């Protein structure tokens, strides 16, 4: 089988990129910049690492894509329901958080929705400070579809039963977040 192999180089300083395990996010050991793997090349991305709310030996960082998109709803029809006070519909420029770790949707779906609705207010730290991090295996491009699904999921979670919806969803950009989680056995819970 014909397979072509190309060494990846940091787009900023040109040093070869190294890693120990499969991860779509690569950290340049030479200049310290963070690179994201896109199809066959890399592009620079600036990660936001959130400070954990406690010290624990079982902390782990999970990668999330923060997808910025412009949501424009042109027609909507909802049956029943009360005033939308508790949950506000998402309109205009919105930020969606999509977990990039290799976990099943039934695990990540709740966090994605939770962070998208209210992102934790936590200080950013410059590095991981010896806390391990999970590799990102979902690319920012595929996360765009997850973001659109998040918008729809949020729409049907709103008060009332959604019947009709016409909208446009345009992606504006993306950023990388590392959010600390507490690992207890197989369970992961946010530590922010």
């Amino acid at each position: 089988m014909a397979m072509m192999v190309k060494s990846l180089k940091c787009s900023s300083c040109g040093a070869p990129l190294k890693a120990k395990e499969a991860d779509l996010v690569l950290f340049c050991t030479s200049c310290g910049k963070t690179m994201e793997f896109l199809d066959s090349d890399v592009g620079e991305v600036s990660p936001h690492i959130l400070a954990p709310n406690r010290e624990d030996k079982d902390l782990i960082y999970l990668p999330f894509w923060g997808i910025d998109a412009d949501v424009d709803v042109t027609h909507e029809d909802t049956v029943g329901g009360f005033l939308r006070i508790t949950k506000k519909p998402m309109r205009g420029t919105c930020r969606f958080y999509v977990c990039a770790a290799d976990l099943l949707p039934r695990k990540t779906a709740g966090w994605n929705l939770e962070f998208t609705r209210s992102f934790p207010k936590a200080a950013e730290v410059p590095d991981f400070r010896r806390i391990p991090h999970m590799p990102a295996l979902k690319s920012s491009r595929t996360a765009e579809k997850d973001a659109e699904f998040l918008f729809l999921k949020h729409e049907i979670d709103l008060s009332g039963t959604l019947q009709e919806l016409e909208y446009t969803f345009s992606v504006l950009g993306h950023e990388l977040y590392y959010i600390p989680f507490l690992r207890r056995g197989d369970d992961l819970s946010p530590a922010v």
Partner: protein
Amino acid sequence: MSSVPDLLIGLSCPGCGGTIEVTEGSRLAFCPYCGSALAITADDAGVTRLMYKMEVTETGAESAARKWFGAFPKARDLAATAVITEIFPMYLPFWRMVGTGKGVACGYSTHTDKDGHTQTTYHEDSSDAEYLWSVIACQTGDLGIVTPPKLQGRLLPYTDGDIPVFETTSSRDEAYDQADTDIRMEAHRRAASGIETLTFSKTFCIPREFSLLYYPYWIIRYQYRERDYFVVLDGVSGSPVSGRAPGDQTYQALAAGLGAGFGGLFAGLGIAYTMFSNSEYALAGLSGLVIGLILVLAGYWMFRFGSEVTEGKLTGGISFSMKGFGQKTVREIER
């Protein structure tokens, strides 16, 4: 580096020359020796090719085939008289996609309550799960393999020429599109279940991996009364997936007799009960008629076509195996 990209059979690291293990479906690999990050472009079609390891030995395949020979309703002397003329391994290509299917469906259902009022129930639902999709990538002719195996066992990178394979005859793009459609359909089916009238729906398929897998089989040809029959075994589990075998004349005659006898008895009793019983449940006798007709038709079928017994999706003979029955191309992955 020259202008021609480095082309490699197997994979070796351009940095240190070490052998790299391919991560399934990945376009990104890491050298375990020097840690270099490497972009991988699979051949022009962009397909990762992998193969499952053959687990069943030739001896194992032969004994599995002999066990199959002895199973009802094949000719009773088959196990004793069949002469195996050929046993050879064959790898069949399958397309496979692993991806997340997401769906949102909105709509309503109506039903009439006992007062005659029409009630409308409004629905809004979603589904979100990871699926495995696979279909066969070649025609198998009279080997009759159409449903993908369980795709279990150990995966290895596929190298050309190492194993006997059947040529892939369906195109990658068509398979990819089919996978996308099938996964979205499944996501939609789950989100929209119970909704009578749809007013809004949207589906997503987020592929994680798309590959061409070669799955091992043993093809065994054998002769019985100078006729050539065959059986195909799963190379990982050793169980028969398709095959042809001679039937047994005694079983055929028995089927005719038992089908006619029991069928007639049930039908006769059923009719008589319906017509002459005073019970208020007299009509229940009609179920006896139905059972009787089913029995006689089953007996006739085995009697008429029982001279050949088939396994898998083959025409011509009778088949008792439920293998592949109701198997779907899309399955949810549980991890």
